[in-house]
């Protein structure tokens, strides 16, 4: 388990994770500064940003001092020089989830944050172009939320025709 860099904001909880060198749990206000400190510490690439809706699993295990909310944004960073991976889980909020965008640090998160907005409704402040990316423009709702149904069409199985 690696440690936070000295530039990281104080009071960020960390823990060990499965298949990660470190998992951090910043609050919304600590998030940008934390990622900035990692970037300065040779984490050159932001590999993935995704959202999770914990509506049916609010009692997930979190370290002490971290209050879980319904929406979470998970960011994975990769250091090519040190060959390390870091996972950052920030609690985005319950009703109107909002986090700061990482576009100013890593340009490659643009499409990933747009996808999290499209499918979950998480607003990323300071994102240059927060529009839907996967769903049609006039779609209503955010499909990957747990209270949005899967949209199954009931299949009626008819009796097959007799021998031909």
């Amino acid at each position, binding site marked *: 388990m690696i440690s936070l860099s000295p530039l990281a904001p104080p009071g960020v909880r960390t823990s060990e994770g499965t298949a990660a060198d470190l998992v951090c749990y910043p609050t919304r206000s600590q998030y940008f500064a934390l990622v900035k400190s990692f970037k300065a510490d040779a984490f050159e690439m932001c590999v993935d940003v995704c959202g999770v809706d914990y509506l049916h699993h609010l009692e997930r295990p979190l370290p002490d001092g971290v209050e879980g909310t319904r929406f979470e944004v998970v960011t994975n960073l990769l250091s090519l020089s040190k060959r390390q991976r870091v996972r950052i889980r920030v609690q985005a909020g319950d009703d109107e989830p909002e986090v700061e965008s990482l576009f100013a640090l890593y340009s490659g998160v643009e499409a990933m944050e747009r996808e999290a907005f499209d499918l979950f409704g998480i607003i990323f402040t300071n994102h240059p172009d927060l529009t839907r990316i996967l769903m*049609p423009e006039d779609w209503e709702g955010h499909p990957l939320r747990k209270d949005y149904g899967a949209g199954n*069409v009931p*299949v009626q199985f008819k*009796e097959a*025709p007799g021998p031909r």
Partner: protein
Amino acid sequence: MGLEDLQHNFLTGQIEDLVRWARRASVWPASFGLACCAIEMMAAGAADFDLARYGMEVFRNSPRQADLMIVAGRVSQKMAPVLRQVYDQMMEPKWVISMGVCASTGGLFNNYAIVQGVDQIVPVDVYAPGCPPSPETLMHAILTLHEQIRTGEILRRRSEGRPTHVEDAQNLWTPEVPVAVRVGTPK
């Protein structure tokens, strides 16, 4: 050439056969490959399973020059109007083969994002099941279509609103839509 308007008699019968032969011997598909089935469609057009033997190796890029639209792959809600637009741009007579289970019924993906069967958007003539259907299945679907063109069933169906392959003989239950590809060689 509108065969439907001709008076059917002995002389025009030969011309009709000729026209039907011409139509089925050089069906030109419009390329509408969407997902995994598109790769199998490309494989069907390539060396080991050659579609050129049916005169179909030219996948016309412009729908205005194409006869057949092989909808190969899953059609999402965003793609549906585009599909309809491409179909509308094709000229009569035109046919549609729905390739794969995703195009035929929505397949594995029974959810908000996929149109449950492309026959909700365009009228389909032959359904080819499989995920993805191997090139042999696609070729069987094409041969079924050729058979339907040869007997003229397809045009008769359109004009009278009747389904093809109806066997009234023993009052069996008949499907309201054209049957799926049958196993076995076409007659």
